[in-house]
């Protein structure tokens, strides 16, 4: 069962592309991101992480539209997406999101 409808004018919109990042060892395998991803990008993997859970893995990378829901709904701060083409998050170089204050 899918929980989000597909917009009927999908073909007219320029769909942004996103890339999903997962920190596997933070994951506790709750499955929220897999279930609620509106674009069905993710699935649960077979592998165990260091805590013995099955983290998600990207099934359909091209489907990601960088909506950010996975980031918001992940209770473990283990997954997020960036726009394709953006500098990818390594060593804190990703586009700052937080208030630096």
């Amino acid at each position: 069962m899918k929980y989000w409808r597909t917009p009927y004018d999908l073909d007219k919109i320029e769909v942004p592309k996103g890339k999903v990042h997962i920190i596997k060892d933070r994951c506790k395998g709750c499955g929220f991101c897999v279930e609620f991803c509106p674009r069905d990008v993710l699935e649960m993997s077979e592998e165990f992480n260091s805590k013995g859970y099955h983290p998600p893995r990207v099934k359909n990378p091209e489907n990601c539209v960088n909506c950010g829901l996975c980031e918001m709904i992940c209770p473990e701060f283990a997954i997020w997406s960036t726009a394709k083409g953006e500098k990818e998050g390594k060593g804190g170089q990703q586009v700052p999101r937080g208030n630096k204050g």
Partner: protein
Amino acid sequence: MTVLKAVKSRVKHPMDNLLRMDRIPHIWCPGCGIGIAVSAFAAALDKAKIDLDKVAIVSGIGCTGRVAGYVKIDSFHTTHGRAIAFATGIKLGNPEIKVVVFSGDGDLISIGGNHFIHAARRNMDMLVICVNNFIYAMTGGQVAPTTPLKAYATTSPFGCVEPPFNIPYIADSSGAVYVARWTALHVRRLTNSLVEALNKRGFSVVEVISPCAMYYSRINRLGDGLDMMKFYHDNAEIKHGEDTKNLDIGFQTKIIVGKFVDRERPSYLESYNRWLSEMKDGTP
């Protein structure tokens, strides 16, 4: 510990600068919604454009009470039920600080019920985020004042016999100026609500209904966290402005969410300062 080492990877999560990543993974169970509430709060802090140095977060005891330990701002993990009282001191000690109380239903409404209603009555300027998972989870699944009638818990092994509190109603009737309720599934709306409430002056309450996959759903055989989230999806109904007295939550019944109260009242400090200046002028 090995796990911690593994986590210190080079990749950085966008919220890393708002959270104490040296303490992640956090203690919450798989399928728990508190982490989502924290995400929403962090996103709201970001969106509300508040100087993070001037925000303090106070938590009590319980699962949600641990939130203070994970957010990278001035944070206080205090005693059971007294987060609001402690926060009152901070607010009055330095009125420039935006004070956020982030705690659970048992902490805020059960043992801390008195401070909750009195702070609302005074209209003490703070944002209270109450994560409601219908049970005491940290101590192992005891009945809470929010546990729905007939639901099971370890100290109500034959079903809960006490009607639960309707948190928005009690907040409203004791004088809160902003009252909203969302489930952990409504992350975006929750974030927006938190932004509004952060910018509000006075006692604001945001209730977050969250799955407890370890105790509440297990004892009541409701499946895991994901099943609870699906339940919210099917049974939450958004009704902004609904009269707060109609917001009771039964066992696996419909949950009404939305923003219910948004009004203006002079805050405690405003009244206090006015009174002080009147006293000085000699015109009581």
